């Protein structure tokens, strides 16, 4: 699958995908950092997941950060429900890397996160970071457990974050960007 360079009205655009289990806080994270109103494709939930969340993202979340005049960073959030999995590959094309967001208060979602991560690893060979969302203040999963369950290597960043805090979301994005930078520099050193 060929990666494509995105050009937007003469400038360049890069893309980061935010994925994670249902109700992990993906929409919140993107809304916190995006300079535009995030694409509103949320709908009321009609199936048995309604008890966890009244609305969910049915197409995608979309946020934008203008880095400078010629460079735009897009954030794409994957849909939260299983029947929208077909969107992942669409959203993933051309991405710089991705953020796997996990709700630290709900360890039961780790298995879902593992499945999503497996699919993304199979789909894309790009850097990623795991963000542990502690928005509710309740932390029932720590970094060690996440690394173990998700089979993460020591170089994969696991970052605690509050999806409602701009500084916290910035730290997640920076962790991913530094991972990409590390990969590029490693490749250059080995070349």
């Amino acid at each position, binding site marked *: 699958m060929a990666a494509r360079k995105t050009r937007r009205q003469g400038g*360049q655009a890069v893309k980061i995908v935010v994925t994670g289990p249902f109700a992990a806080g993906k929409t919140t994270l993107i809304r916190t950092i995006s300079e535009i109103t995030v694409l*509103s494709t949320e709908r009321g939930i009609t199936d048995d997941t309604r008890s966890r969340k009244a609305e969910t993202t049915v197409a995608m979340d979309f946020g934008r950060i203008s880095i400078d005049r010629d460079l735009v960073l897009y954030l794409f959030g994957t849909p939260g429900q299983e029947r929208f999995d077909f969107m992942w590959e669409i959203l993933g094309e051309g991405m*710089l890397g991705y953020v796997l967001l996990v709700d630290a208060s709900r360890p039961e979602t780790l298995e*879902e996160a593992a499945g999503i991560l497996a699919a993304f690893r199979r789909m894309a060979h790009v850097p990623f970071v795991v963000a542990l969302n502690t928005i509710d203040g309740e932390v029932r999963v720590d970094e060690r457990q996440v690394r*173990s369950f998700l089979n993460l290597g020591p170089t994969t960043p696991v970052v605690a974050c509050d999806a409602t805090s701009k500084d916290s979301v910035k730290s997640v994005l920076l962790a991913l960007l530094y991972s990409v930078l590390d990969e*590029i520099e490693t490749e250059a050193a080995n070349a």
Partner: protein
Amino acid sequence: MNLEGSLDAFGLPDVVTLLSTTAKTGALGVRRVGTDGPVEGVLWFHDGSLSGASSDRGRASLVRRLVGSGAVDDAALRAAVARSVADGTGLARALLEAGAVDPELVAQAAADQAIDAVFDVLRWPDGDFGFDQGAHDADDVGLRLDPSGVLVEAAARASTWGQLEALVPGPESVLTLPVVLADDPLLTRDEWALLALVDGRRRVRDLVELTGCGQFAVTTTLAHLVQRGLVHIHDDATPDHVGVVERRLGLLASVESAPTTLPAAPARPTGEPPAGPGSLGMSAAAALAAARAAQAHPQNGAPGSGRVARQPDVVPARPEPFQPERRPEHPEPAYASHMAPSRGGAMSATVVEGATARTLSDPMMQTSPEGAIERDASVNRSLLLRLIAGVRGL
């Protein structure tokens, strides 16, 4: 429906950029409810390129453009319509495949049509969109435009639109030709083609329809003509030149021995209402009386009153009998099952660690190198440093 949203929250450029970036093929439908009712447009994508567009899906916009250019004769159009009705092929494509039109002309018309459509939709104040992945345009004539270039062109048009609107206020403006000019006119062929359709009754909207050139092109040409005084925007406050002459000739009736006969106006096209009193072969006195009556009852709009009554539409709305059957707007997507990860039920924190071995053996964890998304080769250290600095500065 694979992707949908509101244009208020998610602008057309962003949607188009997404579809282009991800090399999608399908139809991006756009809808809004305007003052004249619902309007639907469509932007067709082929592997991320823009392959066609229309801001009014109910009309065969591309073939209208070709017909308006005079490039299609009756026989060819009839044959294309017959084929379209029979097998759903788009009209422009049918004409192209029949060798009835110059491929270069079709390519240019299709590109103009696409840019016009994007420009139109960009000016929508609101609306919704939905992307039907995999849908194919029955009227695909091989156009492949870089969507970002189209957006740039459409944005450039939008930036000049205000100046054009200052000269040609809107699609309902009625145009008239001045009888007296300050200088000898100098016209291009395009300007002449448009001028020939200005008759004092047609609106800008009618001219767009008749020429098939798109609102921007027609308005631009008209604005140049208005600026040079070759066309006037009809204004109720400005006396009609013919009416003024008729009224003044009527004043001669008391000193002329024979009844003053006004010059006959040309016959009106079929379908228009008969001329009102005072226009054809009427005595000057009768014309004057009619003018006075018209002044007393301006809604009658009789000539000589200095007013022009609102005429019936010269180009009445009509159905498109040869529009191929449309695809369903929002078909159920065929969800790909191969992407679905395994998902289990609830798991407590104490079970988490014990599940590691199972996770490692999960076939979903096995990577498949072939066909996987790779990092964009254009992403380099310099770009990363700009991104990092930018995010840090938020």
